[in-house]
């Protein structure tokens, strides 16, 4: 599986915001049908890394390759155009807008003739409701409902459904299970597996070892902006992974700290 050529690859990427260095010398590959779990402590640089892949930030140094060819992702539209869909850690929905309008934000379906294009509300609502229901949120039946009236988890599911619908090659999920209940989280993991089976390259960020172990083929751990470990499924024990996720401190030590 991992012998296939990578769909998306980062080569020696550095990122700094002015004087603040956030990422150093990051090299990563994700192949079709593979799930890369990106792990790391708060502030390690995970979100910054995926924002580079989403076209939100541009690398200070280094290259991005897709299907082996160097590409430039100067704006989010460039990434979307190449089939890279991202669910960012925060936001992604607009509370005072309808479900249908939220789902198609930036890629509105239109109808009409000639230059007069009208937002196709019916089509947008129908597809949005279908896709959200397929995420296991069956209570949503009306695409005109405002997103502000949904629960946090329902909103998150909407954002994920959107990315799954538009992501043709690469699906990036930044802590998608953080706001979700046990059942919905299980559903997201199922969807990640489904995307993988469809041949998408998936990048999955989580702080929960269980979720990472459940779907990950390949793990990369970021500590203070550098890759501290990069290994395949089965190469490390669950305990080792938890320790790495805590930024290198051993879980046993952390537990001892909590006790006192």
């Amino acid at each position: 599986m991992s012998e296939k050529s990578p769909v998306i690859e980062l080569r020696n990427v550095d990122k700094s915001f002015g004087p603040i260095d956030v990422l150093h010398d990051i090299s990563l590959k994700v192949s079709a049908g593979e799930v890369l779990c990106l792990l790391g402590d708060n502030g390690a640089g995970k979100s910054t890394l995926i924002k580079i892949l989403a076209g939100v930030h541009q690398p200070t140094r280094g290259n991005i390759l897709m299907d082996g060819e160097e590409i430039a992702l100067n704006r989010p539209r460039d990434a979307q155009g190449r089939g890279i869909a991202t669910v960012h850690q925060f936001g992604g929905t607009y509370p005072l807008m309808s479900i249908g309008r939220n789902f198609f934000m930036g890629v509105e379906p239109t109808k009409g003739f000639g230059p007069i294009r009208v937002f196709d509300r019916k089509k947008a609502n129908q597809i949005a409701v279908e896709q959200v229901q397929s995420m296991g949120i069956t209570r949503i039946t009306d695409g005109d409902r405002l997103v502000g009236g949904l629960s946090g988890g329902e909103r998150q599911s909407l954002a994920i459904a959107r990315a799954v619908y538009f992501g043709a090659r690469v699906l990036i999920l930044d802590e998608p299970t953080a706001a979700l209940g046990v059942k919905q989280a299980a559903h997201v993991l199922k969807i990640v597996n489904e995307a993988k089976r469809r041949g998408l390259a998936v990048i999955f960020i989580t702080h929960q070892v269980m979720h990472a172990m459940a779907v990950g083929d390949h793990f990369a751990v970021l500590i203070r902006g550098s890759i501290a470990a990069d290994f395949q499924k089965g190469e490390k024990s669950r305990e080792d992974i938890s320790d790495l996720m805590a930024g290198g401190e051993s879980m046993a030590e952390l537990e001892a700290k909590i006790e006192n």
Partner: protein
Amino acid sequence: MVAPPTSTKISFGSIMRNPAAGAFMGFALVFIMFAIFGYQRNFLSVGGVSTWVNFASTVGMIAIPVGFLMIAGELDISTGAVLPASAMTVAITSGYFELPIMVGIIAALSVGALIGWVNGMIVTRTQVPSFIVTLATLFAVAGLTLSLSIFFINTTQTSLNAPEWAKALFGGRALGGFRSSVFWWLGMVGVFVYFLHYSPWGNWVFALGGDQESARNAGIPTRRLKIALFMLCSTSTAFAGVLQTIQFNAATSQANFGMIFNTIIAVVVGGALLTGGFGTVLGIVFGTLTLSVVQQGIGYTQIDRNLSFLIIGVMLLVAVLMNETFRKLATNWSTSKKKK
């Protein structure tokens, strides 16, 4: 009746969810009260109605793009200086220098577009709130208008006698007293309704005020859109200035501070949220009409003229409270309804 694309079924829920509904009810209430107190004072005569509708047309064509900016999370108060700047531009170009009227109009609209571009560029390139940026351009443009007027024509006001066809098109009267600005306003309302509620760009405007970061992540050209909205606002204001100049055959370079308050009051009374992300064109139209009835229609009633400011103040407070309630209803209504 006042439905942007929400539910097709007219239910209590869909009416309560519609921010234009509150603005309409507010207008109906004020109109009925004034009609009762003004029945014997010609409030309902053509002369009475056209007085406040004419006033509404000028405020209204500025208020809608001001409302777009508010929905997008920004404020534009430079309108008070754009109005005299464009008026003086057309009057000096076509009046004093006697160039064709179209040259004057295009020059005035260009001045408006340029001021909007400057506003938009500063707001998108710096972190300075648009209230401060447009406050600065308000004073800068007001000062520039005065000193350039002195420089070019050595006075701060001048007259303009537009050719017949231009007077008919931009400054005439029809149907017993309605100015042509009323018909321009109605046409613009149509275009603005399409833009905000039916075109894909309208979605982007709401997204900008709802969550700018997410809008950017979704691939929306947030900077360009914001600059375009500032330009739309000041160009519409410039157009209102042109219409006024042609109507009254004269222009003055005094800043019109009243217009700033009038447009913002119309937008808020029209149901737009000061915090952005919410509002309708038709709501703003009703907000404008309500304001105009209270400010101009009061002369045709037995109500003491001096009370109009008091009424407007109270109205504004009530509107802000109602908008907040509507927002809560709009986002909670769906939650309480979902048990199916």
